[in-house]
């Protein structure tokens, strides 16, 4: 009986292997090579999710995804060291010029929206929403050492110390928030708990009744049960960031599109073309899986057309 079982097992394994083999041949997935990606830590979760899926389809293509920040990634991009750069902001003119200088053409593709969430402790029962002006009052550099209590923000709020949490200055999210709320090149106040580690921020806000903080919407999605998200009023009434409000841009100014940049030499490579097409096709489902907000399908179609025109 045992032997018979063994034979059947061996046989079925054999059949399975044979089937797998024939499938491999029928599909056109025998490409090989490597794809180097670097850039923003904000875009990283999406690109890594796509790369993971891609590896199962094209196991012989080696995809590496690094995280050196949008600016750091562009530095490598314009030296021709990487094929694709993840970017949480559009390319700067200086970076575009540097690319031109060495003859690298590039294509910008929007892959998702990212929203910044403003968060409070669940026990906080006085904040219903914040206006953009109030956020500015709290975070501007002039507030340092001065705006220290909740009742300084709006009358009627408790006379309790305000504890602020946010990403550190090395993060693209910080740059984005500082520019959107406080204006260009002025930064924010410095007397808050600044951490590049979003888990520290989650922990800080979740355990402190008098806290207020901000970080990427994707991290809020992971910690919904520990934090309360609040709406931001930009003159049109308070709006809470959701799939819809971020997608249609009404959650302003704290939502932004995020991109990948493909260089022309990279787009000449079969494996990169395959990867980018795969990226844009699988983005609608993968983007929301990792906590970001997908573009409308029509936008993805446009990006695919743009890319097809670029590789021709």
């Amino acid at each position: 009986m045992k032997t018979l079982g063994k034979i059947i097992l061996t046989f079925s394994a054999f059949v399975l292997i044979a089937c797998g083999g024939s499938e491999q041949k029928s599909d056109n997935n025998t490409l090989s090579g490597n794809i180097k990606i670097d850039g923003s830590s904000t875009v990283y979760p999406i690109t890594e999710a796509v790369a993971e899926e891609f590896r199962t389809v094209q196991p012989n293509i080696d995809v590496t995804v690094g995280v050196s920040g949008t600016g750091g990634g562009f530095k490598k991009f314009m030296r021709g060291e990487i094929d694709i750069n993840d970017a949480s902001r559009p390319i700067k003119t200086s970076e575009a010029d540097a690319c031109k200088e060495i003859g690298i053409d590039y294509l910008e593709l929007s892959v998702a929206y990212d929203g910044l969430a403003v968060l409070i402790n669940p026990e906080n029962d006085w904040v219903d929403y914040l206006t953009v002006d109030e956020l500015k009052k709290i975070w501007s550099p002039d507030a340092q050492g001065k705006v220290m209590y909740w009742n300084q923000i709006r009358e009627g709020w408790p006379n309790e110390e305000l504890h602020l949490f946010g990403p550190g200055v090395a993060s693209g999210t910080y740059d984005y928030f500082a520019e959107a709320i406080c204006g260009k090149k002025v930064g924010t106040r410095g007397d808050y708990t600044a951490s590049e580690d979003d888990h520290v921020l989650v922990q800080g806000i979740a355990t402190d009744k008098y806290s207020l903080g901000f970080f990427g919407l994707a991290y809020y999605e992971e910690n919904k049960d520990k934090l309360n998200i609040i709406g931001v009023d930009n003159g049109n009434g308070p709006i809470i960031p959701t799939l819809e409000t971020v997608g249609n841009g009404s959650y302003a100014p704290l939502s932004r599109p995020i991109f990948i940049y493909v260089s022309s030499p990279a787009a000449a490579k079969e494996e990169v073309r395959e990867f980018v097409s795969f990226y844009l096709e699988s983005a609608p489902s993968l983007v929301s899986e990792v906590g970001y907000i997908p573009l409308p399908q029509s936008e993805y179609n446009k990006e695919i057309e743009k890319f097809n025109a670029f590789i021709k």
Partner: protein
Amino acid sequence: MNRKNTEKIIEWLLKSSAIITILTTVGIIWVLLSESYSFFQEVSLSDFLTDTEWTPLFVVKHFGILPLISGTLLTTFIAVSVALPIGLTIAVYLSEYAPKRFRKIVKPLLEVLAAVPTVVYGFFALMVVTPFLQKLIPGMAGFNALSAGIVMGIMIIPFVSSLSEDALQAVPKSLRNASYGLGSTRFQTAFKVMVPAASSGIVVSVILAFSRAIGETMIVAIAAGQQPRLTANPLVPIETITAYIVQVSLGDVPHGSLEYKTIFAAGMTLFIFTFILNNISFWIRKKFREQYD
């Protein structure tokens, strides 16, 4: 190879390992000094010592070390005020009351406290002690000096208890016997005779624990927060010198920039503190050690 050569090689090996240790120390001091020197070319010493805000990474830069020093001293004082009474009580109990065999078992067990990785203490403070304290003190922040300080105090108990116990043991037996001979109780002997007689050793143990607490990094980086704040309030997030150095080292500050140099200025401050404390303890030990022999 003859014996003489073997001797020489061994001698050379021993010497070189001693030299490497010394060179490392010299190297660290050299790096601290030279980088702090170029820091103070750009920031005046009086700003560094008197400004009450520390925001070197932001657009509006302030370089006042006071908030970091206050954070460091606050957690340290909390730690010592936990470790001193507990550690000393343990030392007196082990030395004056406990049976010899019990002492032999308990002392190494206590020293295990110092062997627990500090990252574990850090999470213990953040995940266990803070939620517990929040039940007693509503409105206490999740990151605070109090729970980090208390846990750090637990960590340094063995420093106080072990060294103090050694100091109590080193007091000549004749003193204890004389005290009993005069009809003192155990309690009187312990606290009126033995502790005063061993006071120099006890003070040294406290200073060493103090200097260990000042330099402690992981616990405060995890549990005390990362917000430089000039305050004596133990219930709000603060930042210590060590936590600041961790924060900057983990970030993405360009090598050679002023922001980068701040960690050396902060490190230098820390070094000066621990250096002075260690020297005081050395001096006390040397001056008072042979009082009764």
